[in-house]
């Protein structure tokens, strides 16, 4: 579904991604780990189409379409979802309004009629239950004054509403308490299907106990320097990144 080949990207003449290769197939879960500043969030931003970053080389295709050629909103409508590491606050815009616009834009792209208010509210109730999100949060402005954990839960709620084909979760587990982590992981698992895929960006093995990855990749200095099965995450938890860095520098 997603094929990334030799992807290079820079910001203000600083090259951050330096040749990423990755293939994600339907039904798979990939975990991306790596030290701070290695380029994990940059990779997710570039895939989502953030124009802050300039792609200077390489390609990315999504369901056979040239992903890099699509506008950010069309990438989203094609089914790419990014759970932000730092979700943005939008004062004054209610969650309900925000989500309704988002959902109906997706439906328009799929040439479906927009949801009526009652249909939409029904969907929202269902999904709220699924991800066990507090009712109050959806009555407030988008992320405004949400706690760190609440913001992350809200990302998963939005994912549930939009039913993406590929979800990239950028450190969604950071800042969650133990119960919330379980809730979020459950939510992600419930939304999993043989047709869709997930990329988990995380620093902690614990999330991977709940959402078991098919592959674990290590991103370091803008490249994927190691890929293996879920056991790699345990190894990293034990030994840290030094041995990989060493291996890479050699």
């Amino acid at each position, binding site marked *: 579904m997603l094929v990334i080949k030799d992807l290079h990207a820079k910001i203000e003449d600083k090259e951050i991604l330096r040749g990423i290769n990755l293939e994600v197939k339907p039904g798979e879960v990939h975990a991306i780990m790596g030290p701070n500043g290695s380029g994990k969030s940059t990779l997710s931003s570039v895939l989502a*189409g953030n124009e802050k970053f300039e792609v200077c080389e390489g390609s990315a295709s999504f369901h056979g379409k040239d992903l890099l050629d699509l506008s*950010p*909103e069309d990438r989203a409508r094609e089914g790419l979802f990014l759970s932000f590491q730092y979700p*943005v606050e*939008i004062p004054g815009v209610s969650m309900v309004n*925000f989500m309704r616009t988002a959902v109906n834009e997706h439906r328009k792209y799929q040439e479906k009629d927009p949801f009526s208010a009652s249909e939409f509210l029904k969907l929202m109730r269902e999904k709220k239950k699924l991800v066990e999100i507090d009712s109050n949060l959806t009555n407030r402005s988008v992320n405004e004054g949400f706690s760190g954990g609440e913001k992350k839960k809200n990302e998963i709620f939005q994912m549930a509403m*939009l039913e993406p084909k590929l979800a990239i979760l950028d450190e969604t587990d950071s800042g969650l308490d133990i119960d919330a982590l379980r809730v979020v992981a459950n939510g992600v698992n419930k939304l999993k299907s043989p047709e869709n895929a997930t990329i988990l960006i995380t620093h902690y093995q614990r999330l991977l106990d709940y959402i078991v990855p098919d592959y674990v990749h290590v991103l370091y200095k803008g490249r994927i320097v190691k890929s293996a099965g879920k056991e790699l995450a345990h190894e990293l938890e034990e030994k840290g990144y030094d041995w990989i860095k060493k291996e890479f520098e050699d």
Partner: protein
Amino acid sequence: MAEDQDKILEEVTGGEYKYGFYTDIETEFIPKGLSEDVVRIISAKKNEPEWMLEFRLKAFRHWLKMKAPNWAHLNIPEIDFQDIIYYAAPKKKPELESMDEVDPELRATFDKLGIPLDEQKMLSGVAVDAVIDSVSVKTTFKETLAEKGIIFCSISEAIQEFPDLVKKYLGSVVPHGDNFFAALNAAVFSDGSFVYIPKGVRCPMELSTYFRINAMNTGQFERTLIVADDDSYVSYLEGCTAPQRDENQLHAAIVEIITMERAEVKYSTVQNWYPGDKEGKGGIYNFVTKRALCKGDYSKVMWTQVETGSAITWKYPSCILQGDHSIGEFYSVAVTNNYQQADTGTKMIHLGKNTRSLIVSKGVSAGRSHNSYRGLVKVSKKAENARNFSQCDSLLLGDQCGAHTFPYLEIVNNTAKVEHEATTSKIGEDQIFYCNQRGMSTEDAVGLIVNGYVKEVINQLPMEFAVEAQKLLQISLEGSVG
């Protein structure tokens, strides 16, 4: 990075004026220019009584002695008052019985604007008094209103039918000597609306007037007078759109409101006159004097305005809080784009005891426009325990526009409590990207954020008007992207 954002915003805010069309209705002009003769002709054309002509002439003679003001923060090109036509009336001016009799061209114009001057709207409970080129064309629902003793008609008609009321109140809140444009209006006003709500009557429907400037070189000088007697209530709507025009057009209206004991008037405006093109050429000059006198104790006036149009807007709907415990409220959204200039705000004059005022002003600036809030809160010596709260927010789209806030305070009573809060914010590119990532286009994202930002004001508008206002915001900021 910043350049990128500018580009996006420029695209998003580069919307062309959607209502730029021109209806070809035969118009009857009197020659250009202003003189005592012209004032006499206007008065004669309208068959006015002697006292009305005197009212006009007095104002005209005063105006001759006045100088066009030189206001701060507005860059106003010199206006040639001799190059303006002071009276134009649609030639076809029959007495209309039903919608079928309205000029089809005119109806098409209203349709294009999405103004439902049709049975549907009437069924939904709005009486519409449409003003096209200075003369009322159609007044509806008069009978229903008449049953309750409510008067809702054109000011010309009121001068003929209810001379005592008009004589008593016209110019009582905005005297002709008030300012240059007020004097001009008093001398040459063409038409407008008159509303009288008798004692104890709650007007059962929103009263609505659509103004539309429609003839070449015709300055419009509406005159509106609303009198709410003891314990009465009325909600009045004024909406404006104008066709695209190359030459600047002057608009100098006066609105006067008087509320007696415990009476309440809600006055809502959505203004969308032609703002000029992207280079700042053309557009309407909008110099309006709107003032309410809360004469009776416990009376209340609420001004709500959504200003998206005009090349230059100069407007300060004000409340004179004379009655004890009277309340004045002002809710405003002013949007400027391209080269538009807006200088708007309010004056709250506290004269009575325990008077209260509330000001909520939301400015949205885009392009190279300038948006100023100018507000005066005055508490006089006798106004014991006066309260005011002002909230003035500015939202900037891009970094070539300007927002300015000028709060003036004149307080001579130390029991007064006056609070002022102001914020300035910008739409961040990270906010827009977040919306993009959820499948929204940049223009929808800007629309969503702006509408969220002005919600507090829009919520004060009557339902149907709120929808219209949101559409206008979308149009004036979004345009043809995507």
